[in-house]
Structures are given as structure tokens and as C-alpha cells.
């Protein structure tokens, strides 16, 4: 909620500044790409039987022995306006792919498969031995980013960022690797227990980084993006993301730089 208020405030300040000082803006075209990993939790509806470690002395608490991995990779194009060399706001289009997987930590546990409940009634339970569940979802989204450069232009510039991205799901695919490969024909028994991502989702994230390059020449910036939160915790597919962090690279090409310099003189 606090983050949203800050974002709204930044938009208002930026637009106000844009109107008052339209003649001292610099426009850029940004190509951005990056990767964000998410700390995640298994959803409650995924019922996985517990196990004991390989070297078990009978006195250790037994925990769930599966790991969930979740990351998002993306590539996009943004237009950015930098106002008075301090504030930059950009909007664009971005293609992203979210990959999630659930695997057994077989370093400590003997078998490389786990037991997943695929169907259950009061008096029966059907399990399947599963090695891995992978889900891949493709999105197209609109990122809106605000950057603040605390220092005046120089070759290296640091900045902080607040951003949001709204996305639309294009396609999602789930596949299962079974303990017994002959069970592959029963993939639907597993996938019907796996949640699919929602059609619409949104991500809020911050970040900080360094921009390298002259003001009116092509430049590159690298940034740590995070923390990142999905606005809806439970609508992102088979795993529930808690918080994310990652790396983003921007290649920035100035547009209309000469005009801007003449105006400044």
C-alpha cells in the first residue's frame, strides 16, 4: 500500500515537472532484459508425502524434502523521458517467461522422486511417484518504471528505481517427469492438481543500479532489481511467490539529443 502511494506521488511529481520544464527533458529508447528469482512456497493443495533423510537416527524432525524453484526472465522495449537529469520515467512493452519447478532434494534423501497425492477420497488415496514438475508461462506486459538519479550527469551514475508491471498470460504449459516413466500416460492425473496462473497479474518492484555512458550518447545500465512482489500471491501458477530479486540490464539510446542540447544552451 505504501509502495503504491510512493509510485502515485512519483507519477504526479514527474508529470508536473514534465509540463513545467518540457524544454529540459531527454528522451531515450531502452532495450531491457533481466532475470528475477522468487523465494516461494508450495501451495496447500499440492499434497506431498514427507520423508526422512538418508542418514536418519530416528530422532530428527522430518521435513518436506522437495524444493520449489521459480524465476522470471524477460526482454522488452521502453521509451524513457529523463527530466532535469534527475527523474526518469519509462513505459514500454515486455515479453516475459515465468518458469517454476518442483524437485526432490535427493542429496539428503535417497530416491530422486517424491510421492504426490493425485486423487483422494475419505477412504482412498492415489499417489504417484514424481521426479519433477515443470511449469512454463509466457506473458506480455507493460512495465512502468521511475528512476531517480541523485547526482548530476557523469560517466557513472547511480540511480534508484520504483516500478510496476501489468501482464497478460499468453500461454502456460506444465509437464511432469515420473519416477516410473511408464506412468507418463497418466500426466493429466498430476497436472489437474497443479494450479495454472491467472490471466492477469501485476508485479511491484524496486531496484538500484549504475548507468555507464555520456548523457546524450548510448549508455548501458546494470541494476539489482528487488524486492519484487506479485500483487496477488496465489495466482501465479503452481508455486506461490513470496519475494523476488534479480538483475536487469538496460541498453539506452538517446532520441532527439541534439535538440535537447540546443535548448539547454
Amino acid at each position, binding site marked *: 500500500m505504501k509502495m503504491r502511494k510512493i509510485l502515485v506521488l512519483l507519477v504526479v511529481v514527474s508529470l508536473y515537472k514534465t509540463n513545467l520544464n518540457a524544454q529540459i527533458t531527454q528522451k531515450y529508447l531502452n532495450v531491457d532484459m533481466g532475470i528475477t528469482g522468487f523465494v516461494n512456497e508450495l501451495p496447500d493443495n499440492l499434497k506431498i*508425502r*514427507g*520423508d*526422512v533423510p538418508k542418514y*536418519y*537416527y*530416528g*530422532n*530428527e*524432525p*522430518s*521435513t518436506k524434502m522437495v524444493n520449489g524453484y521459480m524465476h522470471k526472465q524477460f526482454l522488452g522495449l521502453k521509451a524513457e523521458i529523463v527530466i532535469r537529469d534527475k527523474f526518469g520515467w519509462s513505459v514500454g512493452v515486455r515479453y516475459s517467461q515465468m518458469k517454476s519447478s518442483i524437485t526432490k532434494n535427493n542429496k539428503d534423501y535417497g*530416491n530422486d522422486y517424491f*510421492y504426490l497425492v493425485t486423487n483422494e477420497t*475419505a*477412504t*482412498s*488415496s*492415489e*499417489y*504417484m*511417484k514424481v521426479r519433477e514438475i515443470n511449469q512454463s508461462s509466457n506473458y506480455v506486459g507493460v512495465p512502468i518504471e521511475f528512476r531517480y538519479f541523485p547526482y548530476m550527469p557523469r560517466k557513472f551514475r547511480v540511480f534508484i528505481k520504483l516500478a510496476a508491471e501489468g501482464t497478460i498470460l499468453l500461454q502456460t504449459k506444465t509437464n511432469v517427469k*515420473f*519416477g*516410473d516413466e511408464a*506412468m507418463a500416460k*497418466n500426466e493429466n492425473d498430476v497436472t489437474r492438481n497443479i494450479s495454472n496462473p491467472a490471466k492477469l497479474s501485476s508485479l511491484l518492484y524496486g531496484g538500484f543500479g549504475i548507468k555507464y555512458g555520456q548523457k546524450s550518447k548510448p549508455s548501458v545500465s546494470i541494476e539489482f532489481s528487488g524486492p519484487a512482489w506479485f500483487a496477488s500471491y496465489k495466482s501465479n501458477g503452481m508455486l506461490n511467490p513470496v519475494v523476488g530479486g534479480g538483475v536487469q540490464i538496460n541498453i539506452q539510446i538517446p532520441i532527439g539529443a541534439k535538440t535537447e542540447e540546443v535548448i539547454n544552451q
Partner: protein
Amino acid sequence: MKRYLIYIVSVLSFMSCSKDVDFSKSVMIYDKELTDLPAYSEWGYNTFGVYYDREVLISNDKEVPLKVIVTNNQTTFVFTGQKGNYSYYYNYTYHPMTLSLTLTDYVPTVYSDLSVLHDSTIRLNSKNCIVELNFDDTTKIPVKVIDGQFYFKRIQKVTVDKKPQELILSGYFDFKALINGKPITFSNGRFDLGLANANFYKY
């Protein structure tokens, strides 16, 4: 004829199934409140535990926690564990303790027949019920139950990769009893045990 054929096929399929080794292991997950006892579960973790006054009778990974013995027109559930909780360093000097529950005039043919006990309660002070204790594999000590019950909350037939695996018996129990004339309370008992051909004996 068709009914008999289905019956024979189902009996043979349950008898012939080989149990997955993971389902034979004990997976001990302790209760967050009653930290001496396993948490109640319905996963077939092969654990049980009960307060025996202020001591505990709890399953371990050395004894088979449940054996069901059908003989002489009666069925006995034998819960074997140890007296007192685990200790990391003194794990090897445990004292075995067995709690047996015998139901007279109940004779299942195969282990899967026990599924009829799903969501049923056995009053332990009833005439067709005998409770016994056994410490350190010595003679059985008869238990005169004053009051108490054994509740089979859930009994599930389990399949793994579409093949029959076992029955999972989960539930609660508690009772007050006289043991050698001394009143003892068994409280907060819970069990989550797998039953397959390997621990079902009929003779």
C-alpha cells in the same frame, strides 16, 4: 459366480502387491504442542504415541510399529514402540513396550478387510475387547480398562502408480485402566500406521 471372481481377483491383487520401501519407513514429525508425541497425520508415517501417565509410549524406527494378528477367532492389533522418548546419544538402549488391543469374534480374511473400521470407535471396556501391555518383551500384563476408546478416524486404501500399496490406519485413543491394581491414564494417543501383507498375520 461373477461376484466370487471379483472377490478372488481383488484378494489376490492385494496379497500380491509389493510394498514400496518408502512406505515401510517411519517418518517422525513431532506435535508442535505435545512435543513428546508424533503429530496426528494421515500419511501412513508409521508412527504412534501416547502419554502413559507422564511417561510416553512411542514408536521408533527399530520396531515394527503395528502388527495385526488374526488367530483363534480373534484379531489383535499389536503396537510396538518404546517406553520414554528418544535421546540422540542414548538411542540404542531403549526399552521396548507393546500395547495390544484384541477384538474377539472379528476375523478379517485379508488386511484390506479392515477398511470396514473406517470412522468407527471401539469402546475398550466392552466385553469383546482385551487390552494388554508388555514391557521389555516379558510376559503380558493384563490391563483392566475403566473407561476409554480407540477411534479409527480414517482408514484409506492406498495405491502408488495405480498399484495397491497398503491400508493407512489413522486415529486417536485414550483410556484409564488398572495395571497390577494401579490406576494409569493413557492420554492423547494418536496413530498413523501402514498395514499391508507384510504386517498382517493370519494363522
